[in-house]
């Protein structure tokens, strides 16, 4: 089957998932970013100051670049969708939202930018490999794996903007254009903070002092420039130190007298120091993947975070086909952990477009609870995943550059 037909089938699958599965975050974010077309630029204090009068009370937890990007897109599409769309965005009724006959159309429109980013990543992977056949394999694996389709479209994963920019940055790293890579990394950080963790490793890769300074200075400056106009107590509280940003570093154990060892920072510093002291040539992609494996292994991660590592895992599998089954198993374990959280919107509620009667069904958490401690069950899966992560990391660190 030729690439064009594959692409068409891939797009059709994605449109189906976009229209039929509904995670409430997409509507909340769309409601919040709709204020850009009304002229509200600094969304953070606006939402807090008007909480009483607004139908949806949540704060905007993403960075300003996400607000501006999504808000601009919505300004463009809302003219096609009309007033009913604005009414739907403001609707706080749990049932009326999903019973709206237009919901499939709204969701397809709202998730369309995700599709553009997703397909762009597929083409970047196609061009990642010198060997055309391997490029096509990567292209196909990206488009035809159930994990990314679910992660992106079922959960309306806007982390894909940062993921796309990080993949572009990595392509420039591969071509040894570290400064250009740093620019894209800076843009990625302006969407989501996690690519900031890559900066120290790029610093190590830089060959001279000037490049070393620039690889640190550029991404941080771009990030600061993107947030400074929005800096306020509301921004810090809503976005900078929101639950998602801080829980990466929350697992810790006490070492006495009020001090704690933060597991994430501890392991990441080992990784950095190992690269610094023992590696003559930093295998950057390998380190990026190991870094993310460490994060997922030792934090209560959000399901959308798994997308961060997905393009890199596709590259690993294509370069080292022997890793296909371990990576597949790792992905299955990783994606299954959040499905056992108490949050209904991780599982049953995704299908509320079909009927709100699903509200009467128990979540996987409740089902497990009838047989076994669901937290223990999650911990077992997470521990197995962490064990696999350690082995995959070991394999990646001893191997040549992916």
């Amino acid at each position, binding site marked *: 089957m030729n690439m064009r037909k594959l692409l068409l089938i891939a797009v059709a*699958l994605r449109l189906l998932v976009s229209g039929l599965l509904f995670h409430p975050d997409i509507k909340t974010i769309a409601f919040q970013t709709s204020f850009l077309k009304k002229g509200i630029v600094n969304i953070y204090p606006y939402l807090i100051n008007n909480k009483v009068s607004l139908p949806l009370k949540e704060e905007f937890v993403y960075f300003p670049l996400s607000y501006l990007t999504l808000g601009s897109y919505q300004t463009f599409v809302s003219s096609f969708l009309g007033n009913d769309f604005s009414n739907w965005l403001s609707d706080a009724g749990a049932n009326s939202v999903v019973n709206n006959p237009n919901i499939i159309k709204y969701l397809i429109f709202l998730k369309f930018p995700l599709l553009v980013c997703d397909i762009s990543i597929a083409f970047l992977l196609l061009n990642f490999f010198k060997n055309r056949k391997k490029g096509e394999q990567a292209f196909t694996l990206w488009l*035809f794996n*159930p994990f990314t389709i679910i992660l992106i479209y079922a959960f309306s994963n806007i982390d894909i903007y940062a993921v796309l920019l990080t993949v572009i940055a990595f392509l420039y790293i591969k071509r040894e254009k570290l400064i250009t890579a740093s620019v894209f990394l800076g843009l990625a950080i302006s969407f989501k903070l996690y690519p900031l963790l890559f900066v120290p490793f790029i610093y190590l890769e830089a060959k001279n002092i000037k490049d070393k300074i620039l690889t640190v200075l550029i991404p941080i400056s771009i990030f600061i420039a993107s947030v400074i106009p929005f800096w306020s107590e509301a921004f810090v509280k809503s976005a900078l130190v929101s639950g998602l940003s801080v829980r990466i570093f929350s697992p810790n154990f006490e070492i006495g007298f009020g001090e704690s060892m933060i597991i994430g920072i501890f392991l990441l510093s080992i990784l950095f120091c190992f690269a610094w002291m023992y590696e003559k040539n930093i295998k950057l992609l390998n380190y990026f993947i190991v870094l993310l494996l460490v994060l997922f292994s030792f934090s209560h991660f959000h399901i959308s975070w798994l997308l961060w590592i997905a393009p890199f895992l596709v590259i690993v599998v294509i370069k080292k086909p022997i890793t296909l089954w371990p990576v597949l198993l790792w992905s299955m374990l990783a994606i299954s952990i959040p499905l056992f959280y108490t949050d209904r919107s991780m599982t049953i509620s995704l299908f509320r477009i*079909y009927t709100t009667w699903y509200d009467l069904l128990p979540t996987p958490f409740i089902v497990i609870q009838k047989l076994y401690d669901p937290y223990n069950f999650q911990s077992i899966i997470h521990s197995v995943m962490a064990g696999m992560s350690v082995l995959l990391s070991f394999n990646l660190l001893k191997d040549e550059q992916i």
Partner: protein
Amino acid sequence: MNKFNLFTIFTILFLLFVVPGLLASFIKMIPANDQPGYGSKGSVSIYGQRDFTQYFVSKNKNLVAIGTTIKNPNLKNKKDIIFNLYDDSDNLIRTTTLNGFNIGDGDFVKIVFENVVDSENKKYYFILSSPSAGDEETIGVFLTEPTDEILEFIYDDETHLGGAPIVTYHKPDSRLEVIKVVYSNLFSKLLFLDFQRIK
């Protein structure tokens, strides 16, 4: 097309078109309506001799449960909460006992009983009481305006229009019936999409 691509296509189509049917087959009761909003009528406290009587119409047959939001301030009520269901001729037809220990403040509580087969369009009333609770162990129900289902309530020997924002649940005739409704609901939304495109 390689096997993995086919596996992915199959998995996604299975998720979108088969899983909803499988999930629907586990639905044991169907709500007759959405819960009405609480409105501005406040709430009433139930404890000791202060019980709450609600008159309502069951719109469908096989009435099997009644759900409403119950207040349990500071989770102080850990006593029995008795639910008695009467028909229009004052016959006690169902009784259920809950315990306040299992009810969080503001929980939506479904009171389930054996189904009342011929309940369609018939008038019933229930009395909710917590006779052993003192005035520090109250539970409460919110009040809303009358609807074609929620008729009137009695509290403190006074009758008022409206009452608790209840949802009645009904046992479906068969699993197939539920599955059919779920898919027809989906296809009506998809057809609506198509209708718009043609227009």
